[in-house]
């Protein structure tokens, strides 16, 4: 061998982190010993993938069971994160009378609650009642080119709900009540003791004040038909009727709301015109109002109903989904209901401490004398038991258990780096609440 300059080739100080493969052409490119020159980021393990995991918010059974179309898990989890006002907004966006339903609903949500299969159902009604006391804002719907004149006869839960949603959608609403006080069957009755008058008054005032004209005294359905585009109210037949000027004419509705024992749990068959319970009345009226409004905005009513329905039932609709539809927002959310068999309860005790933003003892704004701080604290501890079925609550399990560290988290949002995700789907298997779905990679449409 001829004398030539002898080199100890050293590697660069910084490890290359790019995705470009390292090429060593001649011996002079090689380090003198086998020391790494770059990172495995050059190895795109995402190409190995057969199954693709992805985040998809799904529908909790409480939401699916609620006749009003409440986003129960959304408002509970938002409250637990400390965003009280946002939680109250979410609640009020769907349900105009939470102080009422929190005390007088038959609670199908609690019967459907997955937590029942673990220990005890969540006392959702208590949470709803507490959040009803928080300052809120009604959602802001786009204005109408041609607002309609709406007459509402009576002021029971159905009528109040109908009036509220019509007003929300920028129509001109006038409510006719024969009695001196509003509320209809909400005043008196077997369940009245659960709903103190003062609370009922305050709740109705919130719906009415500055939004809905009220006229006390008798009114006649047929008379009103002449002067209004829509008339909604209880008939002498004890059935709700909906009149819409135009070819449809009068549309008979279900029977007046009746007192039902709280939480009796029996299912309501909505195909039969049987008596409605309080929340069913609110929900029915909401559905009717949104359906009408959709038609007036030039949308296909049945298509719209399909897009804004909750949990697979065409009669239970979400005002927030309707708002998103009208404003071009993202309403892509799976309505697949997360039943108990889809949860992975055993992953709850992996030791991951649930992250809760604030102290539930903190008294929220504008508590209007409903409950003292102890009650609120107790109620929020109860809320912390919510499993958040189908909705991510940042438990971090997916981030914690990913063997390849391809999940990053940023301000409560998780992202999978698909350049490297191998599709092992461990993330899906450790999500206690079925938020992560998997699909064959070749079927993914993005």
């Amino acid at each position, binding site marked *: 061998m001829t004398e030539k300059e002898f080199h100890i080739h050293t590697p660069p100080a910084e*490890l290359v*982190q790019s995705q470009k493969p*390292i090429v*060593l052409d001649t011996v002079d490119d090689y*380090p003198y010993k*086998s*020391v*790494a*020159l*770059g*990172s*495995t*980021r*050059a*190895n*795109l*393990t995402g190409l*190995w993938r057969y199954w693709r995991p992805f985040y998809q918010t799904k529908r909790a059974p409480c939401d699916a069971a609620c006749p009003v179309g409440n986003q129960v898990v959304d408002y509970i989890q938002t409250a637990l994160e400390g965003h009280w006002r946002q939680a109250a907004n979410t609640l009020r966006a769907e349900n105009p009378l939470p102080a009422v339903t929190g005390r007088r609903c038959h609670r199908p949500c609690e019967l459907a609650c997955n937590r029942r299969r673990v220990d005890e159902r969540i006392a959702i009604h208590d949470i709803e009642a507490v959040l009803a006391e928080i300052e809120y804002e009604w959602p802001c719907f786009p204005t109408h080119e041609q607002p309609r004149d709406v007459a509402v006869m009576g002021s029971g839960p159905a009528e109040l709900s109908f009036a509220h949603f019509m007003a929300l959608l920028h129509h001109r609403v006038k409510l006719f009540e024969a009695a001196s006080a509003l509320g209809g069957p909400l005043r008196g009755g077997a369940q009245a003791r659960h709903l103190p008058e003062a609370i009922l008054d305050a709740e109705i005032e919130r719906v009415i004040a500055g939004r809905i004209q009220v006229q006390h005294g008798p009114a006649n359905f047929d008379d009103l038909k002449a002067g209004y585009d829509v008339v909604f109210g209880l008939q002498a037949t004890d059935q709700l009727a909906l009149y819409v000027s135009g070819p449809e004419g009068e549309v008979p509705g279900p029977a007046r709301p009746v007192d039902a024992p709280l939480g009796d749990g029996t299912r309501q068959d909505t195909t039969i015109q049987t008596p409605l319970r309080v929340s069913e009345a609110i929900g029915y009226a909401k559905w009717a109002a949104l359906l009408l409004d959709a038609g007036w905005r030039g949308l296909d009513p049945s298509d719209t109903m399909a897009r804004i329905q909750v949990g697979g039932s065409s009669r239970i609709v979400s005002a927030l989904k309707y708002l998103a539809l009208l404003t071009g927002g993202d309403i892509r959310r799976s309505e697949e209901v997360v039943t108990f068999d889809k949860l992975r309860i*055993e*992953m709850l*005790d*992996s*030791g*991951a*401490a649930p992250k809760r933003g604030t102290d539930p003892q903190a008294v929220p704004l504008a508590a209007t004398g409903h409950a003292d701080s102890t009650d609120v604290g107790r109620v929020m501890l109860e809320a912390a038991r919510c499993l958040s079925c189908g909705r991510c609550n940042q438990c*971090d399990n997916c981030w*914690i*258990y*990913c*063997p*390849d*560290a*391809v999940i990053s988290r940023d301000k409560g949002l998780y992202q999978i*780096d698909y*350049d*490297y995700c*191998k*599709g*092992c*789907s*461990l993330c*899906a*298997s*450790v999500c206690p609440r079925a938020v992560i779905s998997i699909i064959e990679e070749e079927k993914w449409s993005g």
Partner: protein
Amino acid sequence: MDTENVRVVIPEPEFLSSGMYSCPGCMAALAMRHVLKGMGPNTIIALTTGCWAVIDGPFPYTSVKVPLLHGAFGTAASMARGLRASLDIQGKEDVQVLAWGGDGATFDIGMTALSAAAAYNENVLYVCYDNEAYMNTGGQQSTATLPGMKTTTTTESGLAGIRKKNIVEIMAAHGIPYAATASVAYPHDLLHKVQVARALKGFKFIHVHSPCPTGWRIPPDQGVHMAQLAVKTRLHPLYHVLDGHRYFMDFDPEPAPVREYYDPQNSRMLRLTEEDMAAVQAGVDRRWQTLSVRCQQTQAGP
């Protein structure tokens, strides 16, 4: 769980890059990910032959962001001794040394080196990731293989042959400051143990149970589930031993029968009779009993 009294937060920084050469669902990769989070950047790893020697990436690539030394088979503990001496003589006593080996490297070929490092109370942390066989070479039996499990070299029916070594007891018998079991299914516990260990001087040993979906012929998303079952069936109880004689139970869940761990791994099991399963259950129960007694004795005080 012991960690219920301690709010264990999993630190954000990652010390592994994506693009690792591990199989999808590899629990050994998850184990390293969490141990490194617990160890921090001021760490040098002595890595011996096994799955992790491949996972890390071929030359000239690496997935590990702390210094890492590959070495021959069975040398994790002896390399760790060399690292410790070298760092100390250069005044770098604060740099952590992490010896990393699989069950094959630790229970078998590296046993003598491990024993010496423990006996000399070398100031290093040794973590063994246990997938219950020589997985890197295709799944031959090791002395960490459970009785009744099929490997490429145990193919007859029944329980003949293997009694899984109780490596933590072996380590405790060396009187080391800290010996513990851990599981990839309980990362907060694992992390806590790493953090406790690195703050101690002397030889620390953590036995991390990390299922291998590929080798165990189970779907890639089942690793954590199986690891949980191993703990709940008391095949791999979570406990730690201080100074070789003070025992602490870290997790005492509602027990599940050993069957629950064996049955989902049907393809991995030799043909076992009811008597075989009963014998396995009896062994597990006996060991749990001993462990409980020791924990109670520790509680009772000297």
